[in-house]
C-alpha cells in the first residue's frame, strides 16, 4: 500500500503576529514554527494505517523553504518512511489552488492508495487544498474526518457536520481524507524513532518542476480586525453587581425599555 500525507509548517498560534511590509501576509520574525495541528492528525492516522496493514510505504510531503524540513523530521520520527520536500521559498505567496496543483502533480503518477491531509491550515485556513487535490486527481475526497477505519480496500469514515451531527461515509480506496480534531491523539515520537528519522530519505524537489497551474485568486490585503468594543468584567458583591448590570443594560441596551 502506498500512502501520502501532506503537511504544512505553520507558526505557533501563541506567537505575536504582525502584518508584513507587503500587507498581504504576516511577518515572519519572532515566530515559532510547528506542524499544522490538523496535519498532525493526518500523520498519526497515516502511521496507524501503516501499522495496521504492515506492508505500506508512507511518504510525507511538505512545501516550503529549508526550514520546513524540521517539521518534516517530526513526521518522519512519528513513523513516515520518506520525505518529499517541495522546495519553495515563497509557499505562503501561493494560493490554495496552486498548492493543490503542486501536490496533485507530485502524486499523479505515483498511485497512492490513500492521501491524508489536515482539513485546513491554522494560518490561512482556506480548507480547500485537500478537496482540490482530490478533484485534480479524480479521487473521492472525504473532509473533516473524525473517525477512520480501513478494511480490505474500503474506508469507513465519520465526518463531522454542524451541531454535533456526524455523517458516515464508506468509500473504496484510493481516496483523499482530510482530518479534523478528535480523530486521534498524535503520538510523541520515541527517541529511537527520532534517531532513525535523521537517516530517512528526504528529497527536495524544486517547486518549478511541479507547479503547472496558474493562480486563480489573489490576497488583496491582510489586516487585524478593527477593535469594536470588548468584554467588561464586573467586580464586587452580588448586590453591587446587580446594580451595575441594571445600569449598563439601561444605558446601552433597550431590553429594559
Amino acid at each position, binding site marked *: 500500500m502506498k500512502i501520502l500525507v501532506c503537511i504544512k509548517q505553520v507558526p*505557533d498560534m*501563541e*506567537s*505575536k503576529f504582525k502584518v508584513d511590509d507587503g500587507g498581504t501576509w504576516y511577518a515572519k520574525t*519572532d*515566530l*515559532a*514554527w*510547528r506542524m499544522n495541528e490538523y496535519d498532525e492528525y493526518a500523520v498519526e492516522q497515516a502511521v496507524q494505517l501503516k501499522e495496521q496493514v504492515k506492508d505500506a510505504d508512507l511518504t510525507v510531503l511538505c512545501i516550503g523553504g529549508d526550514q520546513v524540513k524540521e517539521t518534516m523530521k517530526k513526521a518522519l520520527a512519528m513513523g513516515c518512511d520518506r520525505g518529499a520536500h517541495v522546495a519553495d521559498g515563497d509557499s505562503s505567496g501561493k494560493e490554495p489552488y496552486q498548492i493543490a496543483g503542486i501536490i496533485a502533480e507530485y502524486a499523479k503518477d505515483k498511485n497512492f492508495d490513500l492521501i491524508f491531509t489536515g482539513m485546513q491550515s491554522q494560518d490561512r485556513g482556506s480548507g480547500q487544498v485537500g478537496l482540490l487535490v482530490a478533484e485534480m486527481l479524480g479521487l473521492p475526497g472525504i473532509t473533516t474526518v473524525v473517525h477512520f477505519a480501513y478494511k480490505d480496500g474500503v474506508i469507513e469514515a465519520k465526518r463531522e457536520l454542524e451541531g454535533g451531527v456526524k455523517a458516515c461515509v464508506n468509500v473504496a480506496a484510493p481516496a483523499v481524507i482530510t482530518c479534523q480534531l478528535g480523530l486521534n*491523539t498524535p*503520538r*510523541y*515520537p*520515541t*527517541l*529511537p524513532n*527520532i*534517531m532513525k528519522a535523521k537517516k530517512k530519505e528526504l528529497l527536495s524537489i524544486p517547486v518549478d518542476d511541479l507547479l503547472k497551474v496558474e493562480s486563480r485568486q489573489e490576497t488583496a490585503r491582510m489586516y487585524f480586525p478593527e477593535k469594536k468594543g470588548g468584554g467588561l468584567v464586573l467586580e464586587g458583591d452580588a448586590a453591587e453587581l446587580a446594580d451595575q448590570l441594571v445600569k449598563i443594560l439601561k444605558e446601552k441596551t433597550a431590553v429594559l425599555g
Partner: protein
Amino acid sequence: MEFTREIYWNVGHNAGTLVPMYLFAFTAIGLLVRGFLKRIEIYKQGLPLIRTDQPARRLLHMLGNVLLQKKVARVRWPGLVHGFFFWGFVLLFIGTTLIVVQADFTDLFFDMKFLKGTFYLLFSITLDVAGLVCIFMLGGLLVRRYFFAPEGLETKKDDAIMHGLLLTILCTGFLIEGSRIAVTELGTPLSYWSPMGLLVAKGIAGMGEGGLRAMHKVLWWTHFSLVMSFFTLIPLTKFRHIFTTSTNYFFDDLGPKGKLVNLDLENEEAETFGVTNVKEMTWKDIFDADACTLCMRCQDRCPAFNTDKPLSPMKVVNQLGEVAFTNPEANLVDTFGKDVLWSCTTCRACQEICPAAIEHVKKIIDCRRAMVLMEGEFPGEEVMTAMEATEVNGNPLGIGYAERGDWAAELGIKPLAEDAEVDILYFVGCYGSFDKRNIAVAKSFVGLCQAAGVKVGILGKEEKCCGEPMRKMGNEYLYQTLAMENIEVINSYGVKKIVTTCPHCFNTLEKDYRDLGFAIEVEPYVVFLEKLIASGRLQIDARELSCTYHDSCYLGRHNDLYDAPRALIKAAGGKILEMDKNRAEAFCCSAGGGRILAEEKIGERINVKRVKMAAATGAENLISNCPFCLTMFEDGVKGAEVEDALRPKDIAEILAERVV
C-alpha cells in the same frame, strides 16, 4: 591474686572442645561467605558503576555513619535504641574476639595472656554492661515492633528470627557467665566486676556445683551453636544489613547531590534508553535493595505516599530486589506500576532520611526515561502538550517565545543581545518570565538588585526552559536539547555570574549543565541577596512580619540551603513560626519532578495538605523561594479555604516591600 579467669573453663581447652568448635566455626563462616558470594552474583546482573573512587573519603563517610550511627539516630528514639544496641553488640563482638585471640593464638603460641589484671576487670565490666544494654535495647525494639508497631511497619519471619536468636544468645551468655561465677567467683572481689553475671550467679547458686557445671556445659555449646547459626543466617535474613547497609555508605553517591547521569544520546549503538529491566539498572541499584532494612522512614516522609498515591519508595526498592533475585527478566515498569513511577516529585525526602544510603529517586527517573524515550508515554495528555509546547516555544506554558523578556522592559532591564555589559545574568526561568504571579517575584528581585546598584541582564527571548521538569519526567532528549541551546547562548555573551530565583533552574545549571561543559558560576538569589545585605549594599527595613517558611525541595534537601533564606526573612523582620515538617523534613509542594506539568489525579492534593500545615502555625504569610511552590500554594490556599488568612509570598517580595 591477679584478676583473670580460666578461658574454656568447664568445657575444657583441649582437642575434644577445639576440634568440633573450630570445625563448626569455619563451616559457619564458610556458609556466610558462600551466602554473600551468591548474592554478589545477583548484584552483578546490573550494569557497572564506579563507586570505589576516593576510597579514603568513602571510608570516612562509612565509619561516620556506622560507628556514630549518624543517620540512624536522625529519628531519635528508635535510632538511639538501635545505636546503643549496635555499640553493645560491637563490644561483645570485640570481647569474644579477644578471648579467642588470647586462648587460641597469643597464649597458645607465645604464652602471652593479656586478659588479666586491671585490663581484665575493665574487660569484664564492659562486656557485662554491654550485654545488659543489648538485652534492654533489643527488648525495647521487640516491644515496639510487636506491641506498639508504627502504622505500616512490615514484620516478617526475619524479624522473629532476629529478635529470638539474639535474645537467646544474650540470655544464654549471662546464664553461662552466672553458672561460672557461681562456681568460681562467688564471694571474691572479682565477681563485682560482673554485676549482671553475679546477680544471675546468686539466683542459681542453689543448684550446687554438679548441676551448675552440667548446665554450663550444655548452655556453652548451645550458645556457641546459636552464634554460629547467626553467622550462617546473616546473608539469608535481614541480618545481612550488618554488612550491606554499612558498605552501602561506602558505595554512596558522593554528589553533587541528586545529579542524574547524562544519557549518551549520540550513541548510535544504543537500542534502548532508560530502564525496563533489572539488567539495565546498575549493580548498586540491586545492592540498595539488600541494604534496605524496611525501616519505613522513606515511606513515612514521601509526599506521594502520604496523600494516598500508590508510590512507596521502600516498596519500589524492595520490588527491584525481588525481581533481581527471583525473576530478572520481569519488566520493571510493569512491576512498579506506571502510576507509582509518575507519582514521584523527586523531593528527595526518602533519600535524605534513609539510614541505608539508598538512592530511590534515580531508579524512578530511570524507568520514566524508558517510558518517555521508548514509548512516548506521559502521565497525561497535559504533560505531552507541555513537552510539545516546550519544543516549539521553549517553555511548558506554551506562550510565544518572543514575549519571554517582555516583563522586564518597563524596569529598564535589557536582554544581553542589546547590552551584555552586566554584573549578573538573571536566569529568569519560565514561570518568572510568563506566569503573572511569578513575574511579580522576578520584578521584586530586579528591584532589589537595582536598589543595591547591581546591573542585571537577562537573555530575554533567547532564554529557554532550563529543562528541569522535562528531565525529571524522563524526557532526557528534550532536556539535553534545551540545555545545549541555553549553554551556547550564555557562553556567547561572556557572562561572569548567573543568579536564579528558581531553585529548579539553579540546581540544573549548577549541577546538570556541568556535565555538558557549562562552567559559569551560578548562585541562587537567596545567597546572592544575603551577601548584598551583609555587605551593606542592600538595606532592608525590618518590619513586623508574621510568617512561616517553606523549604523548597531543591533549595533545601537538594542543595542544603536552609539558613540563607531564614536569614533573609529575619532581615526583613520576620519571626518564623516553623511548621513541624521543616528543613530536611519539609513536605514537598507537589510540583517537583516535573509534576508541575501534570494534573494531580490520585489521592489528596499535596499542595493543600502543605498549606494546611502552614495555616496550622497561625502565621499570616507562607513564604517560599520557588516559583513552583508559590504557584502550588496560591492554588493550595484556595483548596484549603484559607485564602483570607494565609498569603503565599516569595522571599524576594517581602524584601522588596521593605527595601530602604
